């Protein structure tokens, strides 16, 4: 800071932590400031010189900043919503009310422009704390007022947002400054100009250069710089490319750099590159390096959010409501006590739970008195949320395949005072046999965990194609058995929510698309008003158009773990048989070969149905079979899946593994046979089966069973 600044009698700037802003004060101030704001702020001479010096030292960041303006966000905040990490820049001429406050103060204090970003940061902090302290007195109406613009975001993001606003302002400033220096700064220092020009051009290192580099120890700094430059070039390839170098060369260098800098394996980087546009990819990778905020959920069975917040504030916890979209969530900024061991925690007043875990339950919205199945419940966060939405009425069946993890479920359910739950330890795939006829089912499928890399960095290197395929296969089996456990005739329900903490398309859209083909289900809106739409087309795959009703959440754009949520409604209890025929016509074949389960599933299912008297609500029999949801987009699917088929055959090595997961050797044999047989043979076979089915369902089952043995 400046020489004259005496820290002992430093006057507090800004509205102060606990100050409440007068209503309408912002607009008042805006009137005063209007003129100053419109025209670009002139820097002091020293400030200008410093800016030049900065430009000389690192002319690059400017470019990357520019790049970030082009990047799109789906939210309405896209205008100024940008990653929070790059703070360093020149000055702010913010146009929103908060920055205006700061602006006034700065000018008064005569602070030099170069130091302004410190200032901005500081006042940002102030703002955060102000929100926190306000909390206790805050009621719902007030909540609505504050942050009316970006309510669907986490409050912690509001801070980031502000930062971004600042950044944008700074960027404008720097543009203007450049113009300035273009006109008047030339005589001062023309080497700067030349320098910038030179650095703007990013040169692709040649083969020998790379070899040289490999011999040297890795310089992360330069790699980071190179990633930025590379992304910059790729985003405007026509203009910025080097003559004679192709996009592939740039991309391969970029991938290599990303692998080294963020320490991912090649496979995962390629996967992510398919999902995100380049600029977003870097943000995503950056976001995976930082932890998500700690969030808790109030247990409304035992307390209210306001009481809980007060009790925690008294224990020295710094918290804030999670956002407009949740009435029960709180974000913990920092805490002087361990948040997982306070007496309130032990008394079951809240549950430690990631923000993203709220979403599937909110999408499911279980009603009082319903019977709900949570297929993979551990450690019980979502289960307890369901119980509190149902006010401890109805029945929840909490299932998990892992007996050890059920201990924590047991603890959490009892701690939170949930009494309407049955905890059991089945494999989810067996479920419709055990119990069926649920009003709602939540399937939080086991996944590769590519959305929670910040929690578990091991994912970066440990996953490969086989892992993704394996979990996708398991998920397909689970989603079918989840659908089969549903009761479509339930007056209030018949809904399935499918979610994963993975962001790969194979484990999400593809699985849902598969379920759409195999069962009488349709996608319905999730009821979540934020998040990005699911993919309907991905590379060579085309999914059902309704998949845009599913929602994706990313760490860099929503500040929560990467997540996928889809809500399905079952509209008929019959299991369509047409898909089985389709396998013969090579339409559904790729998926059929890849997951032999479903066809067996139908067989098993119908076999069990006859003897399953345990099912509380008996399903209408499969006699009235009809094929309904296949027809509309059949033509659309046909081609891409065929491509897939080829691909799958190439990847045949993974095949035995995925089947082995199911642990049924007989099935594998069956699949092998199926594969060998020609299309026409199969068609005949299917016809025969269908005939048999018409006459006697049991007979058909026996037949198929025999075949498989």
């Amino acid at each position: 800071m400046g020489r004259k600044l005496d820290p002992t009698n430093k006057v507090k700037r800004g509205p102060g932590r606990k100050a409440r802003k007068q209503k309408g004060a912002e607009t008042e101030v805006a009137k005063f400031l209007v003129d100053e704001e419109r025209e670009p702020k002139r820097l002091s001479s020293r400030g200008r010189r410093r800016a030049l010096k900065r430009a000389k030292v690192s002319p690059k960041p400017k470019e990357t900043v520019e790049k970030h303006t082009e990047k799109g966000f789906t939210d309405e905040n896209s205008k100024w919503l940008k990653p929070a990490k790059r703070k360093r820049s020149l000055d702010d001429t913010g146009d929103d009310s908060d920055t205006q406050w700061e602006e006034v103060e700065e000018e008064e204090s005569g602070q030099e422009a170069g130091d302004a970003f410190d200032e901005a940061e500081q006042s940002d902090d102030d703002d955060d704390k102000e929100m926190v302290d306000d909390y206790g007195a805050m009621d719902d109406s007030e909540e609505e007022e504050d942050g009316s613009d970006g309510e669907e975001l986490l409050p912690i993001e509001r801070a980031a947002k502000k930062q971004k606003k600042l950044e944008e302002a700074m960027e404008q400033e720097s543009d203007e400054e450049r113009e300035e220096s273009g006109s008047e700064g030339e005589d001062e220092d023309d080497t700067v100009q030349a320098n910038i020009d030179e650095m703007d051009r990013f040169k692709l290192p040649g083969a020998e250069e790379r070899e040289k580099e490999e011999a040297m120890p890795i310089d992360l700094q330069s790699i980071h710089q190179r990633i930025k430059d590379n992304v910059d070039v790729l985003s405007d390839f026509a203009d910025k490319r080097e003559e004679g170098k192709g996009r592939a060369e740039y991309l391969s260098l970029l991938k290599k750099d990303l692998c080294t800098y963020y320490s991912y394996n090649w496979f995962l980087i390629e996967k992510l590159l398919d999902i995100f546009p380049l600029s977003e990819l870097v943000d995503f990778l950056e976001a995976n390096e930082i932890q998500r905020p700690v969030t808790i959920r109030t247990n409304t069975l035992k307390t209210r959010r306001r009481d809980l917040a007060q009790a925690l504030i008294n224990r020295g916890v710094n918290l804030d409501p999670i956002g407009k979209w949740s009435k029960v969530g709180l974000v913990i900024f920092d805490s002087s006590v361990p948040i997982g061991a306070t007496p309130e925690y032990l008394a079951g007043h809240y549950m430690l739970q990631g923000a993203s875990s709220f979403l599937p339950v909110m999408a499911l919205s279980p009603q009082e008195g319903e019977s709900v199945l949570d297929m993979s419940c551990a450690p019980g966060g979502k289960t307890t949320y369901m119980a509190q939405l149902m006010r401890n009425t109805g029945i929840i069946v909490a299932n998990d395949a892992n007996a050890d993890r059920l201990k924590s479920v047991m603890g959490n359910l009892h701690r939170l005072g949930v009494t309407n739950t049955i905890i059991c330890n089945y494999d989810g795939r067996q479920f419709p046999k055990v119990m069926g006829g649920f009003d709602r089912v939540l399937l939080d499928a086991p996944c590769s965990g590519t959305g929670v890399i910040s929690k578990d960095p091991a994912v970066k290197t440990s996953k490969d194609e086989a892992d993704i395929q394996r979990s996708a296969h398991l998920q397909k089996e689970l989603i079918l058995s989840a659908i089969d456990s549903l009761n479509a005739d339930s007056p209030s329900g018949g809904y399935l929510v499918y979610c994963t903490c993975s962001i790969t398309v194979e484990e999400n859209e593809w699985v849902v698309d598969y379920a759409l083909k195999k069962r009488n289900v349709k996608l319905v809106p999730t009821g979540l008003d934020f998040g990005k739409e699911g993919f309907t087309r991905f590379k060579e795959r085309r999914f059902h158009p309704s998949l845009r009703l599913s929602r994706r959440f990313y760490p860099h754009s929503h500040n929560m773990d990467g997540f996928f949520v889809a809500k399905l409604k079952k509209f008929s209890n019959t299991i369509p048989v047409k898909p089985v025929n389709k396998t013969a016509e090579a339409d559904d074949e790729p998926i059929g070969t890849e997951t032999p389960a479903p066809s067996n599933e139908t067989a098993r299912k119908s076999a069990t149905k006859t003897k399953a008297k345990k099912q509380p609500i008996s399903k209408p029999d499969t006699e009235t079979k009809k094929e309904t949801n296949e027809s509309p987009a059949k033509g659309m699917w046909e081609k891409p899946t065929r491509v897939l088929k080829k691909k799958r055959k190439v990847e045949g090595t993974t095949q035995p593994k995925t089947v082995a997961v199911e642990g049924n050797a007989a099935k594998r044999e069956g699949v092998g046979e199926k594969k060998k047989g020609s299309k026409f043979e199969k068609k005949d076979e299917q016809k025969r089966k269908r005939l048999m089915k018409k006459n006697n369902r049991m007979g058909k089952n026996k037949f198929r069973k025999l075949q498989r043995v």
Partner: protein
Amino acid sequence: MLNIHYILDPAYRMCRHTIASCFRLASSVFGTHVCLVSAAVEQLKPLFCIILYIINMRPLTDDETKIMFEKLSKYIGENIKLLVDRPDGTYCFRLHKDRVFYISEKILKLATNISRDKLVSAGTCFGKFTKTQKFRLHITALDFLAPYAKFKVWVKPGAEQSFLYGNHILKSGLGRITENTEQYQGVVVYSMADVPLGFGVAAKSTQVCRHVDPMSIVVFHQADIGEYIRCEDTLT
């Protein structure tokens, strides 16, 4: 009805009192019939052990009910009947793997679908029967003890932590205590903010508590909500 399988397995050795308790349980169900078997096993004891295998959750036997209700009544007195006769549906106690669960009839019906070895819990776990046929209340029962508790103890905020770590309550940490608490009366422990923290047994009567020195124990610790973290594994 109940199915009891006697599995004679030389490799499986159970300690003696387990066998004894099995027999006590079995004889209370089947009466004299089991005594014959027990006599036979008595002869073969060095070689054979017996495992009682009971399909599904079963209702408590009369003995078990008596033992458990005696224990419960130490804390909530005659309020037990409020647990059994509830306006919002029939609730009952069921035994599963030595644990006693308190479940509504509706949930129980659904729970019968689940095979014995796959069922972990249903409703609320109240506690477990030890191998010596004593009933031990678990902290999970606190939700049902606290609202009906007859005798209560409040601990000061400073002593909260100590109690939650499994220590007895000293006079210095005692905030309030119900009048007329007898010695060795079961009490439910609350924080000063009326959050139930656990339960225990009064070490001294209210009268004596008044005059006792600050470092002496006034409530013996039995269970506290800290156990949700400390002994998560043993809750099930």
